[in-house]
């Protein structure tokens, strides 16, 4: 499973709803940030991540008879909410890791920082006068 897979996009648009409005170039930017972060981790972590994304994709089949990427947004959000509250630390931690990567990909883009009104500048107070 690649990081540009439908499941990652499905999770991303649920974690950050505005991500659904990204154009292809912006998606590429998001995915490049995620890919860079994943590449810097050990092979074991990369394997765990791929495995967890597979789990995220197929687990909803048990409850909703559909894969995550085919679920409607409401059910998708409900499912992911269950994952972040799961009694098993492994599931909570896995979701936390995927969520962190998506937030990094989205908010790590300078355009997203500007969009939320973040204005820090090396010139400090001088830049605000």
């Amino acid at each position, binding site marked *: 499973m690649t990081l540009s897979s439908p499941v990652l996009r499905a999770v991303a648009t649920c974690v950050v709803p505005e991500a659904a409005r990204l154009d292809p170039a912006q998606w590429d930017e998001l995915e490049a940030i995620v890919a860079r972060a994943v590449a810097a981790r050990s092979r074991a972590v990369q394997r765990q991540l791929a495995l967890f994304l597979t789990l995220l994709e197929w687990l909803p089949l048990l409850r909703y008879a559909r894969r995550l990427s085919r679920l409607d947004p409401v059910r998708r959000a409900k499912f992911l909410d269950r994952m972040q509250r799961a009694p098993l630390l492994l599931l909570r931690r896995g979701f936390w890791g995927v969520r962190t990567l998506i937030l990094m990909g989205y908010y790590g883009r300078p355009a997203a920082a500007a969009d939320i009104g973040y*204005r*820090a500048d090396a010139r400090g107070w001088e830049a605000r006068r």
Partner: protein
Amino acid sequence: MSTSPSYDIVVIGSGAGGGTVAQELAPLVRDGVRILVLEKGPRFADQDFTGRELEMADALYQDGGAFLTRDGTMTLAFASAYGGSTVVYTGTSLTAPQRVIRAWGVPGLDHGDLTRRSAKYAEQNNVHPLDDPLINDNNRLFVEGGRKAGYLVEQFPVNVKGCRGSSLCNLGCPNQAKQGTNRVQLPRAERSGVEVVTRAEVLRVERDRSLTVRVTEKAAGTKGAPSEWAPGDYHVRTRIVVAAAGAIGTSALLLRSPLPAPRSLGHGFTCHPALILVAEHPHPITNDVGHPKSYFVDHAASERFVLETCMYFPFVTAKSLTGFGPTHSAIMHAFPRLQMILILACDHAAPGNRIAVNRTGSPVVHYRFTPQTIDGLVRGTRAAARIFFAAGARRVHAPADPPLLQAADADRLEERVTARHFRPGMLAVSAAHLMGGCGMGRSAADSVTDAWGRVHGLPWLRVADASLFPDSLEINPYLTIMGLADRVAEGIRQDWAATRG
């Protein structure tokens, strides 16, 4: 393997501990003593500090700031650079509380002595409270809210010179205002003839006092200068080794070295686990301009938490909020109206919380949250929420269900914020005050070093960083590290003089 020249003293690490030792031993160079500092990270030029979040996190922090504990429930932040973590902290400078040093019970370690030494570095690094016109709304609201809510709010002295208020301290000051060891102690040491080699990782300390060192090449497109030595493996001979690679770095180095180290090596790890809380005000405030951390509330002794003002960057902020979806996004889009408070839990050394190494020798940190540490986070969250609301915040984002606390919740925080919302793996806990692993004490039966940082049974091996702390310090540690490193340097000078008759 290349062989490098021999040295008399090798200091491993260049942060608050290593930088201090290098400066304090530098006068020995005049007497012909050869001193080398080995730093794993690169030497950055002023223009390398761009303030861009991901770019600087990748360049400065271990694992880009995402070093996780073994069970993946906490992120540990520490830097690799000329100047170590003094490059990336906010410069907050407090001296160790007397009650903490007493509780440590290290024979030969006196609070008065440590305070005097810390004061020396406070003066050297221009530590002072910021003038009022430089304080932003994020800090001012903490003071106002804290006082209204009945807390004693104190001002942090900070080690800055010519601060322009970029708010980017944790990404390395882009204006060279922060007086870390990269700006003060290391340049002084180098001017006196101490040699500093960057991108040089010490893989092992051998029994014969030699060091196996790997110098890495600067990768294309990365920040920082190339190493002063050619890339490759070196066998460095020395007479005295000072390990100052930080709590995790030093403990891991000694653990993977074939030395008869005391049994408690790696144990006693503490880290002040921290949570970032945000609150939304009805109007924009100055938050991402100005020094981010000027005030604090210290409830360490009574309730096991400290609150500090803080301001983080978009990704770190997003990661720190619990939950996801529209509520999360709405808070992020309120960025210009956000006030932030950092809650630090004052954890204590607990069995099992330790630094180890894996089969490849890389550090692995085992950490479980004790009920007392969780209680510190819960109490700190309630206190932060009281301060936010007293300061006029409309709503507070906190670990609760649902995560948004409204003003009406201010009177029932005990019900809304409880330990069940603080399950590991559900919230973004991080820590930057990494302590312990080579604790000071009486003998090898209870500790790794004595009160002067000498490793029990290996008098040529000293430790000079936060790994010396036998338990949590309960405040920001950098001045205490410098005070302890000053003692380590003094011990070395005395021993050196004694051997010279």
